[in-house]
C-alpha cells in the first residue's frame, strides 16, 4: 500500500526509559515531519526534515532526537521519558511542503 506508516501503534513504558518510534513513507516525498497531539487534540509540529536535512526544530526538549537515515524514513528517539511525553505522535510527509499526508499515529503512554 502507498502510505505513511508508523511503528509501533501503541507504546507503553515507564518513566526514565528510552524509546524510539519509526516512520516510513513510500510516497517518494522529500519532506517528513513529526507532530505531537496532546490530550486536548491540539496538534503541534516538532520537527521537519527535507531530504535528510533538519529544516524545522521547534522548542522541543533535547531528549527528543529525530534521525533520518534516508529520505523515506524519519525516526524519533526519546530519552529519559517523562509523564508529560504521553501523547499521540504523528509522522507526516509532503512532496512540496503544502499538503501533508499523515501516518496512523503512535499512542505513547508513560507510566
Amino acid at each position, binding site marked *: 500500500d502507498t502510505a*505513511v506508516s508508523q511503528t509501533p501503534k501503541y507504546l507503553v513504558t515507564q518513566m526514565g526509559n528510552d524509546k524510539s518510534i519509526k516512520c516510513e513513507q513510500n510516497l517518494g516525498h522529500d519532506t517528513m515531519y513529526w507532530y505531537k497531539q496532546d490530550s*486536548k*487534540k*491540539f496538534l503541534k*509540529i516538532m520537527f521537519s526534515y527535507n531530504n535528510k536535512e533538519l529544516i524545522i526544530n521547534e522548542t522541543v526538549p533535547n531528549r527528543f532526537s529525530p534521525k533520518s537515515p534516508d529520505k523515506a524514513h524519519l525516526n524519533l528517539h526519546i530519552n529519559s521519558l517523562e509523564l508529560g511525553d504521553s501523547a499521540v505522535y504523528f509522522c*507526516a510527509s509532503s512532496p512540496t511542503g*503544502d499538503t501533508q499526508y499523515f*501516518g496512523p*499515529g503512535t499512542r505513547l503512554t508513560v507510566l
Partner: protein
Amino acid sequence: GESVGLHLPTLSVQEGDNSIINCAYSNSASDYFIWYKQESGKGPQFIIDIRSNMDKRQGQRVTVLLNKTVKHLSLQIAATQPGDSAVYFCAERGQTDKLIFGTGTRLQVFP
C-alpha cells in the same frame, strides 16, 4: 472509551443537512490553508486546500471559503453523512513554511 476531545467545540447536524465548520486564523501573511478530517484512532486525513489568491474552492461534497479581510476560513459539507463524523482541523501556513493547526471542531451526525 476516549475521554479526550470532550472540550472541543462540537457541531451536531442531522444526516442529509449541510454542515459549516468555521475557523479563524491568526496570520494575515499566511498563503496556504488546508482542512483535515481526523476520525477516532486515526491520523488526520487531507480534505481540501486553498491558496490565499483564491476565495473559494470546491471538491466532492466539500467547499472551502476564505475571507482574508477577517481572517476566516470555513468548510462546508453538503448532504452530511454519518461517515462525516470526525474532528475537523484547519491549518494555515505562514512565512516559516510550517503548518499551524487550529484547535479542531467535532462534527456529530445524527440519523
